[in-house]
């Protein structure tokens, strides 16, 4: 099964340049994030380069500090690299949780149908229209000391209905496919049909759901931080950008503090978007060969 998925993945990648590009960019970003502790160490040379007052403040970029230092004398390059890791983490956490919940709800609702579907769909519909920002605040007030993970969970609470909604409509259309009937006359059980027949075909939609939840979470985090309810002790890309904005770093000439994290985020979005579009191209035969630019 895993082998098969792997080969299927490879096959799809081969079929779309956009998908491949997206994955490569994503891969590079993840690698950068994975090695961030090492990079920070190398920059600091024994000292923690993002400790407050590690260096003089507002140093211009130079050989010692590739991107200069910020208003607290932290090395911006080290900050950015570490922040990238945090942003990726929150995206991954929220993406995974909301996708998993969304997929489960979507499958239960879409496959079972009837009143279960009625209730679940109405509930998802309700959650969808509640603006999340105020509720996030209420929620973060609950948690005593929010960790990155908890923030991820909180954001997911409001993100899953999106995934659930799109995937449910797909399940509805897929469950009447002849191959589902074939599975049924081959004595497959509901759960088996869901996991082996429907799930793989929904990968692109799940991928889209994952990507948008992940992006949502990365920005949700910025929002929380701006109102002071972010997770303690970590810096993420949004926070650096926000800090660059509020200190007016751009006019001070400290452009790397703004441009580099914005660039990284944009790259991340672009990569995720490319993966999404690529997946859709590959899976949607109508788009195949048509969508390519």
């Amino acid at each position: 099964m895993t082998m098969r998925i792997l080969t299927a993945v490879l096959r799809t990648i081969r079929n779309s340049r956009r998908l491949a590009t997206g994955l490569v960019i994503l891969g590079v970003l993840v690698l950068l994030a994975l090695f961030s502790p090492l990079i920070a160490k190398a920059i600091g040379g024994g000292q923690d380069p993002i400790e407050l007052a590690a260096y003089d403040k507002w140093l211009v970029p130079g050989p010692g500090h590739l991107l200069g230092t910020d208003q607290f004398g932290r090395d911006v390059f080290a900050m950015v690299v570490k922040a990238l890791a945090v942003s990726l983490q929150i995206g991954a956490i929220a993406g995974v949780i909301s996708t998993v919940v969304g997929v489960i709800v979507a499958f239960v609702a879409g496959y079972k149908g009837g009143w279960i579907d009625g209730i679940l769909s109405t509930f998802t519909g309700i959650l969808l229209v509640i603006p999340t920002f105020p509720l996030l605040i209420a929620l973060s007030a609950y948690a005593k000391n929010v960790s990155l993970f908890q923030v991820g969970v909180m954001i997911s609470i409001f993100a899953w209905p999106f995934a659930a909604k799109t995937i449910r409509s797909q399940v509805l259309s897929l469950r009447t496919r002849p191959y589902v009937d074939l599975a049924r006359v081959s004595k497959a059980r509901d759960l088996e049909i869901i996991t082996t027949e429907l799930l793989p075909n929904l990968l692109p939609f799940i991928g889209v759901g994952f990507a948008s939840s992940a992006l949502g979470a990365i920005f949700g985090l910025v929002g929380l931080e701006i109102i002071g309810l972010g997770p303690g002790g970590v810096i993420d890309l949004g926070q650096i950008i926000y800090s660059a904005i509020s200190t007016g770093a751009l006019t001070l000439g400290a452009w790397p503090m703004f441009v580099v994290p914005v660039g990284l985020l944009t790259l991340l979005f672009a990569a995720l978007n490319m993966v999404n579009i690529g997946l859709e191209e590959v899976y949607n035969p109508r788009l195949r060969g048509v969508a390519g630019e």
Partner: protein
Amino acid sequence: SGGGSYSDKPANNNKPVATKSIQIGKANIPVPRDQSVIVGQVEYTVFDSFNGMIPNGSPSGAGVELSTEPLFYLSFATGEMRPWLATEYKYNDDHTEVTFKFDPKAHWNDGQPLGAADFKFTMLLLRDRPDLFGGGGELKEFVKDIEVPDAQTAVVKMLKPGPRFHYNFISAIAGPPLGIMPEHIWKSQDPTKFKDNPPVHSGPYKLKQAIRNQKMFIWEKDPNYWNKDKLDVKPQYVVYQSTSKQLDQASLAFERAEFDVGSVDEQHAKQLRNTGYPALQTTQFHDPNPRVLWLNCDPSRGVISEPKMRWAINYCLDREKIGKSIWPVPVPPAQYPWADYPTNDKWKNDELANKYKFEFNPDKATQLLDEIAPKNAAGKRTYKGKEINLEIITPSPVDGGEYAIANVLKTELAKVGVPATLRSLAGNVHDEKFQRGQYDIDSSWAGIAIDPEQLYSDWTSDKYQPVGKNAAGKNKLRYRNPKFDAISEKLAQLDPNSEEAKPLLNQALEIYFQDLPMLSVIQTGYPSYFNTTFWKGWPTDDDLYEVPLNWWQHFIFVLGKIEPTGQKGPA
């Protein structure tokens, strides 16, 4: 490393190196620019109400300060106490009676006389209406009755000795705790509903206009001001306006002389100075609140309730570094929990300060920690068998100074084996936790005190509340020490300047140093920024004729001293 700091050299290449002339921008105000002082301020939410007795019933920092007056002004800069609405106060010998004399010239800005009757009306209203802000409380505790023998004399009869009762009417930094209200206006009103708009106050300015959508208040000079002889303010208008949320935008507005006061931050100010901007004047202002760490003394919080732990934390504080690199401007370290104004010097005791020397010394911290919180097999410090972990909170945003202080401490604590979590909490979320004692260390500021006993009186056992219950603005430290209680109680009955008070104050200070319920970290320097394009004569470091020197109530004295430069506003 590096090629120096950004603001060392002109950062914006499209700008000339030294601007000798100022590009005057068009300020967004509806009154003549050259007759106005424009003060850059933060956010306002209330524009149509000036009733301070209900929640958000009145805007703050919006210039209301220019139209309200205390009975007395106290300048921290000079130590001078200026009688204002009142000409004097006088206690009887056992401090159970205090007499206020009002200035016979005083009248409200609607022309009605201002005097003892208004005073009595206000005090009794607040004493008897505990559902009003400022109501109940001190007044209920102290005021038995108020006699008004003549229109200018009010005699407060007290239930118990109250040598500090007049503090309630002094404007020291902010407004006085209790202001007085015109009886003829309020008598017939429901104080929980009345908006008092436009406000009938006294003061050199009257409200001209409050523009909600512009977040702007325009105050106009009152031609009939009662105290014109003593104070003749120069600007015809004072405009309080929200500035841009981005510092670069805000400082650009300053650079274009769209603001006279505020609206620039230190980093951008530095840049302006370096580019030769001629109209920026920076004056240092010490906040009367030093930055402090509140330490929770409640035993249920574990190791933090140990004085030795608090000393260990003290040894982990690198005050020099914080003062030099963390705070936006260089500031001195603090040892006393009050500001380093000359006025306050009389409360100091160098002998004690030397005995309990504050120094950055992680080794000493380690020693103390090993005594009370030895490491367990896993190498973690434990207290009473439990691994320790401190919870640090702060109301400051993550890019704020107090957060940074806490962050530095957290790093140092980690080095001596004390893990800690640090969270910045928004306004009320913070206050909730703080009041309920759900924290170990809170990085914020001390309260303003005219004398130390004002601080101490909040820290006594009778104000103690267990963790989880709201300490209601008092003993948030959850500090309990019977010896300290006794001294504080005696001090409360005494004039702080009296001879008897002196030894008691020293005793209290020594207990404070031993137990360290609150750790002063640095004296807080806030630079104030003035633009000299339209107005000159602002307070300077050399001639600091007034504190606080910008938008607070004392600002009227600044407005009385400045002069127009003759610069005309843009068309």
